[in-house]
């Protein structure tokens, strides 16, 4: 009986010892980890400070002015350029006609299907003859461009109504914006700032 008790205590003592050392090493490892992370944070923060100082140095007004003179030739804004504010620009007028009910729109699209490469027809009045409004240059206004969601919703209804899903995928792509942009005579949209600067320089 005594032996059993001794054994129990022995086991308990060694278990406690192991557990304690286990926890101790765990804590040590965690503290090392913390110290490492803190050092890394400190070094990153220091680097950040250096970079911020460098940014401030590189964007000094005199540097910017010299660079502007060399590359951009921007001039201070004159009074003439400030005659109106953004508030003076009229708001976009409401769309000319309410969008046609889905069924009708679907019908129009179905009719316009042969001319699928320019599917701006959704916003055109449904009464116009098929095919013609699609290619007319007049509807290429911002309203037309801004309405792809409506186009898509109309298209989503269409296959169910006409049970002709084979033709739908061609239209289902969000192509309309691109198509309109291509057909309009506006200058090419610059891909980057450098591109834009190059365009301005060539147009001068």
């Amino acid at each position, binding site marked *: 009986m005594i032996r059993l008790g001794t054994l129990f205590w022995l086991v308990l003592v060694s278990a406690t010892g192991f557990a304690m050392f286990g926890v101790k090493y765990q804590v040590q490892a965690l503290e090392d980890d913390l110290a490492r992370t*803190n050092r890394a944070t400190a070094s990153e923060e220091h680097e950040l400070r250096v970079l911020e*100082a460098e940014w*401030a140095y590189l964007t*000094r*007004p005199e540097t910017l002015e010299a660079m502007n003179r060399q590359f951009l030739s921007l001039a*201070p*804004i004159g*009074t003439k350029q400030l005659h109106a504010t953004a508030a003076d620009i009229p708001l976009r007028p409401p769309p000319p006609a309410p969008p046609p009910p889905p069924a009708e729109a679907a019908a129009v699209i179905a009719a316009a299907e042969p001319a699928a490469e320019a599917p701006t027809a959704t916003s055109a009045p449904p009464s116009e003859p098929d095919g013609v409004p699609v290619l007319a240059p007049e509807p290429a206004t911002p309203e037309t461009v801004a309405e792809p969601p409506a186009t898509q919703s109309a298209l989503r209804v269409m296959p169910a109504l006409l049970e002709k899903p084979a033709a739908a995928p061609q239209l289902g792509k969000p192509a309309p914006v691109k198509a309109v942009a291509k057909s309009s005579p506006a200058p090419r949209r610059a891909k980057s700032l450098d591109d834009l600067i190059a365009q301005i320089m060539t147009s001068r």
Partner: protein
Amino acid sequence: MIAAQPHHGYDDNPCRPRHFKPPPCAPVVPEGPARKALEACRTRLFLTGILFACVFAVVALRVVEVVLLEGGTAQSHMPRFRIPATPAPARADIVDRNGRLLATTLDSPSLYANPKQILDPADATRKLVKAFPNLKKAEVYAKLTSSKSFVYLKRHLIPREQYEVNQLGIPGVQFQHEERRLYPDGTLTAHVVGYTGIDNAGFAGIERGLDSMLRDRREPLQLSLDLRIQYILREELQRVIDDFTAKAAAGLIMDVNTGEVLSMVSLPDFDPNHPGAIDPDHADISIADRMFNRDTLGVYELGSIFKIFTVAMALDTGTSTLASTYDATHDIHIGRFTIGDYHGKHRVLNVPEILMYSSNIGAAKMAIAAGGQRQREFLARIGLLKAPKIEVSEAAAPHFPAKWREVNVMTIAFGHGISVTPLSFASAAAALVNGGTLRQATLLKPLPGEAPQGQQVISPKTSEQMRKLMRLVVEHGTGTMAAAPGYVVGGKTGTAEKLSGRHYAEKKLLSSFVGIFPINDPKYLVLTVVDEPHPNKQSHGYATAGWTVAPATSRIIQRMAPLLGVQPVDEASPEIQRALMVESLQGKRLEAY
């Protein structure tokens, strides 16, 4: 088992069974030295036991305290085992009103060597000189072979240099952690931000004025300064100096409604990164001259721009009205002085004309009519008789006569005989046009919702009259070249002769201009002062304010207004004309000065 030995005779039971073990008790030692020794031993054991018990009790109590009572003081011992998560820089950054960095603190380790640990001084010298070409070989070698155990090789390395030294891997060469204050914009904000010396203690400007604040805080200190506006002002003032070969210039731009200083420039200036370094281009200008902040530490007899205070005083105290007239036909002779007019009209002038044509005679007579007592009280009320309060450490008290005699009243009326700092002048002028509230000038951006306090020094009606009169000066008077179309500038020119010895020197001028725009709804004040401008061909032989600083003010306003979102207006529109109409001049033909 000694106890079991029968021959000792203390087991008195002869019939004891063999397997019987005697009870575990101490043997009965007979009297004698052995027994004594045993008892001493027992006592010692007992005392030791008590001691151990006490210590264990303390440990147990401590365990209970730590585990059950949340540790007590245990926490305070912990941080010393940890590295603080982000070591705070020794000094807070300084940024402008848009968050742009003006001053920061960077680690910049210094390189030192312990010559006792250097194994091969010749090789180490060769490597170090290769890495730092501006170090001298002989010097480095002498340092590395010296008998000291600490010699600086180079102070304040940049990160790349530190990397290179690490690459060299010379034993005995080490880094010492040091911090250094860096001003990315160099001279541009030199006088406002100031600079620090060794140990990063503030020596000038905000760095000195708010030294303890910068030491204690972690988040950046935001100034009211706008770096863009600062650049514009500095560039235009430098242009005035170059165009008119002037000695120095000072400029201030202030928000008239809050007292915030958007820009403060004093030229010539210095590089706070290397204070004390001599500019090779202008080696003749002393360091002290460069470090002198002309906006807050320089006091000047500003001349005619002071007339706005004379007029405001006379109108506010009611001793004159806009229709009052004063005879400016003849010069005034008083004592050894003769007061005459620069743009003389030699006729009777009314109050708006006195300001427009900057008549010294008229201003002197207005002041006399009001009296010295009123004049002095008024100047004290608008803060011109005490040193300005501002965050930079440099602020000078004004010079004014202790005894306010009649001749002083006359000269002070047109800005002679009293010297004030441009900063005090700007604060007072702002109060004249903003509705009459004097606010302390500040270089710190107020927190949102923190309305700057001020005190009413003149009535809103007088303030409105002053706005109209200052508009007249730019529209028809001496300041026509300060006009910036669309921004409705109002202002006043001032050309003072500098005192040299006991006399005023006619060729040594101090030209100044105070411009406020838009004057119908004042937002910003631009004060420019240029010291000893010389006439050039473009100015037709003039070095007066109207030809030097007034055009500069026009350029400054046209450049800064779009940046600050001031919308230009049509100056000829009926509502602006009506707002700025001076009733007493109705129907009168204005002649050019």
